[in-house]
């Protein structure tokens, strides 16, 4: 099962490597990991996407909680939540046909074209992981020159929230 785990961690040097090191040392898989400071400068928030059996996920959350720098943790998958990821994707758009097709797809997926050159379009797209994946599939034969994705971020719906 795929799980999205949100972590509040002390904003200390090396905090990220403690999490990454835990995953590599114990052979857990990380599908994506995103980190940034929060409104409280002493805390960072990480969103980590991983896969494993219930037993492995239980160990992952326990081992993460055991890290001294981890202040709090929430498995978003356990409740209703919103998931978002941003993708910047540069595709070839040299011919008229290619340009029209990319523009049309960007509209359908509610993306924006951020940058245009003689032969390329760069599209920005926001959504959950599945939406971004299907955009890529929809591009079909149009050559992709570059993709950048930030990894999933998530937040619980409603009044549930992860804070101190």
């Amino acid at each position, binding site marked *: 099962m795929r799980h999205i785990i949100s972590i509040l*961690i*002390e904003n200390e*040097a*090396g905090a990220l*490597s*403690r999490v990454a*090191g835990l995953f590599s*040392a114990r052979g857990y898989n990380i599908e994506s990991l995103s980190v940034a400071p929060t409104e409280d400068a002493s805390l960072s928030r990480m969103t980590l996407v991983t896969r494993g059996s219930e*037993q492995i996920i*239980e*160990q992952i959350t*326990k*081992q993460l*909680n*055991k890290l*001294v*720098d*981890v*202040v709090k943790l929430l498995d978003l998958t356990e409740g209703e939540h919103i998931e978002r990821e941003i993708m910047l994707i540069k595709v070839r758009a040299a011919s008229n046909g290619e340009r029209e097709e990319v523009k049309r797809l960007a509209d359908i997926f509610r993306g924006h074209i951020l940058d245009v050159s003689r032969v390329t379009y760069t599209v920005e797209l926001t959504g959950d992981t599945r939406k971004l994946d299907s955009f890529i599939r929809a591009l079909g034969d149009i050559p992709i020159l570059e993709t950048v994705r930030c990894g999933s971020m998530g937040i619980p719906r409603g009044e549930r929230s992860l804070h*101190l």
Partner: protein
Amino acid sequence: MELSGAEILVQFLKDEGVECVFGYPGGSVLHIYDELYKQDEIKHILVRHEQAAAHAADGYARTSGKPGVVLVTSGPGVTNAVTGIATAYMDSIPMVVITGQVPTAVIGSDAFQEVDTVGITRPCSKHNFLVKDARDIASTLKKAFHLATTGRPGPVVVDVPKDVTDPGVKVPYSYPETISMRSYNPRVKGNARQIRRAVSLILSAKRPIIYSGGGVILSGAADSLTELARMLGVPVTSTLMGLGGYPATDRQFLGMLGMHGTYEANMAMHECDVLIAIGARFDDRVTGKIEQFCPDAKIVHIDIDPASISKTVKVDIPIVGDVDSVLTEMLQLLRNSDSALDQEELKLWWELIERWRATNCLAYDHDSELIKPQFVIEKLWEITGGDAFITTDVGQHQMWAAQFYRFDKPNRFVTSGGLGTMGFGLPAAMGVQIANPGSSVACITGEGSIQMCIQELSTCFQYMLPLKIINLNNRYLGMVRQWQEFFYGSRYSHSYMDALPDFVKLAESYGHVGICIQSPADVEGALREAFSMKDRLVFLDFITDQTENVYPMIAAGKAHHEMEMSPKSVLI
């Protein structure tokens, strides 16, 4: 008070109540060593290799109830200490390791004797810190001691760059009496509802057993465990790390379980219907084949570390908390309970256990011309009245020590269980002797292991540590040889210990007494002679039977009821 970083560091250790530091100097810690020179409250033990500093601090911690403290220099000082840090980590031993680092300005430039200490020790310490400002030394060390000694204990590393201890830079210091960390709040008290559920499950059992581990020792819960077991009248087995948590000479004790556990302990595990796991972590040396582990049992597990619970074996009633606190509450509930264990069933259970016990699974040949290693340890137990502190190295001798030295008290058996570090025994014994001057301390070792930290004989002479070294010299890396005999068609690939030194002369050249014992008839006399020399280290080199194996044995991947038995045990 305005002090330099080095002064703060040493003053903090005094204020924290540290009496002894195990260390080895070098460039990056010279400011600190200069401060140590100027005082005499803290004793510094100069080892001969940094690995030994960590093992000695480990032995000190296990037998003093206080954290061990280590001080080493940057680069090779740290890398040498890593084996000792990892050893303490695997066995959850409280330790604070202060490491020198190159000056902050040159960190990351491949400076002379620079290693990424925080990076190297991250996976083998409970936590680690890099101190970048003299003002942070006291609060960081306070956190380090707090982390090392609370919750599930473990080693904590504090890396201190040389400029941070500069004697020319003075900053304010006051001893931080308390520390709070919002991200670290280990749970001590168990959940009351879970404890009630556990008690009622236990009372419904027909074939209960207590599986006790190192957590009982670490928690100081031997008395509570003993009271619980006696009140219930149930059998107790223990891991290697838990030995001494329940008196080994008591009838209710079945001996150690696991790979080299007794027949009765392993069979009772296999047949039990309620397993009470207390401060034990279901290690693979203990469980054997996971799919067949305690097939009929409901499991209660008490552990302070939630990550130890349901890690390898799914348990039915988890209780997160300190063993002593939880057992105290259980005892309270049991005293006030109207129900009790079904005594008829319990009697039948004991009859079954006594039949397993009758196999006499630890039997060995008493009529041999050669010295049997088991015999040496039995005699050692007799002569020391079962009351010595015993450290071991790793191998067959370690297993015989666990099987034949019957520990009635906790904190008496000091062994590297989790990492299985050869070279641990001698330096650990130094730490034990320093924590317990005047007590008998013996290191049970093998001719392979003892050579891994043999240089510490020099430290022992400098500080007049009257250890007794029991070298079970089988001229083999015996545990390796045993596996090669069983599983590799007796192809003894590189397990013969050739070109051994003359251990008697070696001991003498370090200023100690050496005795070589070749015949079973001389074993007892030599041991008595050694222990009568109260102020001398005596190296006893017992030339033992080379072919002896450790029995019973559960081969890797086998279940508890599939033991290889000694040819001497009684088959049933």
